[in-house]
């Protein structure tokens, strides 16, 4: 049986698909209008979402208790062991910290120097299955702006990708769109690291000379070169593997991030916008 589709419906199909593709084109280019609209919506929606989250927290806790029960038992035992060990390390660390702070002041490292910081709590994880961003409970009211680097004591976490009055979104370094200029802690070679998804290591596949000798365990820090989006010296990760890049033009590095971005509770936003 030959079936003819109604004209109105076909028009709607074409119009909506074209509209989607057009929006996607603008979205991929991150045009300012869309960014502004998203920020506006965030300003309105975020406080309501906060209330919904507070109401749903018992449900979330119960869910995590059920789905993570086995892991929690193991984690609890492991944490007890680690706590005992850390107690011992604490005294030694205090002394080392004092010396390090003094040294940092004397060499004026930007990361630990006079960049003002804002501590924030991670209020919720990624909002969708394909999102690599978390929400924090501080926003423009606290001096946070789009583009500011976010770190923990361990190292770089990501950057602020959206900020409204009382909340902000942090793009994590696991995001496939995330890029950061890095420098080898030993040797000083510069390259660019990019995210490869949740639980995956970072990839450095541009910038490192193929003849460079890079040992496993070599640390990477943000390069902080001119116009970099990050100040120099923020620890990023450690090299776990090296291999020849495609065409032999660069050395590819597999880098394990120092911070587990899937289990963040608190982060520090560096009020650094690159103009300094």
């Amino acid at each position, binding site marked *: 049986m030959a*079936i*003819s*589709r*109604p004209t*109105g*419906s076909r028009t*709607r*199909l074409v119009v*909506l*698909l074209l*509209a*989607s*593709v*057009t*929006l*996607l*084109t*603008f*979205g*991929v280019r991150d045009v300012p209008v*869309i960014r502004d*609209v*998203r920020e506006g*919506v*965030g300003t309105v*929606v975020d406080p*309501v*979402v*906060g*209330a*919904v*989250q507070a*109401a*749903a927290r018992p*449900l*979330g806790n119960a*869910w995590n208790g059920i*789905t993570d029960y086995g892991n929690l038992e193991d984690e609890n035992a492991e944490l007890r062991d680690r706590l005992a060990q850390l107690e011992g390390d604490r005294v030694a660390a205090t002394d080392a910290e004092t010396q390090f702070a003094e040294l940092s002041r004397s060499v004026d490292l930007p990361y630990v120097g006079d960049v003002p910081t804002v501590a924030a709590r991670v209020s*919720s*994880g*990624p*909002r*969708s*299955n*394909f*999102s*690599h*961003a978390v929400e924090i409970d501080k926003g423009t009211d606290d001096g946070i702006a789009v583009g500011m680097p976010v770190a923990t004591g361990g190292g770089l976490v990501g950057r602020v*990708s*959206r900020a409204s009055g009382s909340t902000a*979104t942090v*793009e994590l370094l696991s995001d*496939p*769109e995330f890029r950061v200029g890095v420098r080898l802690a030993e040797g000083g070679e510069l390259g660019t690291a990019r995210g*490869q*998804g*949740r*639980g*995956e290591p970072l990839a450095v596949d541009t910038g490192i000379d193929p003849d460079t000798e890079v040992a496993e365990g070599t640390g990477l820090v943000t390069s902080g070169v001119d116009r970099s989006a990050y100040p120099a010296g923020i620890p990023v990760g450690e090299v776990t593997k090296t291999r020849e890049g495609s065409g032999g033009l660069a050395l590819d590095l597999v880098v394990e991030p120092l911070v587990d971005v*899937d289990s963040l509770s608190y982060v520090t936003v560096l009020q650094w916008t690159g103009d300094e």
Partner: protein
Amino acid sequence: MRPRRRFVLAKTVLVLIGALLLQIGAVADLRLLGATGDLLLLLAVAAGWVDGPDRGLSWGFAAGLAYDLVLDTPFGLSALTYAVVGYAVGLVSVALSRPAGWWPVSIAALAGVLATGIYAGVGHLVGVPYPFGDLPPVALVVAAWNAVLILPVMRLMRRLVGAQKPDRIALVLGGRR
């Protein structure tokens, strides 16, 4: 616009906003294998199944667009994905004359897998390479959520759109309401 249509439109907007707030305020934190369900996709699937491809398309576009507004992923990607999935589910629903039983549950689960594939595939095309290793757990969890929730969401959808005119494609293809 007639008062009744305005009323339906207002209810539709309320359902979309409610689903969006529930999704990002509660469901997004209920993770299994690192993935979570997707209420906005579920609305598109239910609309397609209950009311045909035309409405599946419209609901998918609207729900995806609403979701895109609060995400950091490329704007328009959810709208495109959910519109295509809503339309496809509508076509299947009409072609099979909307069978009951396990059919809607199975189709909703398949729609979850399809949506995951389309989202990641189009993402790759536009230069956002979502890792393929992330996809199986995401597809599995979205399919499971869809399968569990599709029947109550279909009931909600029937109550919401029941008073509207039948889907035009469904009429032409001879689908029963």
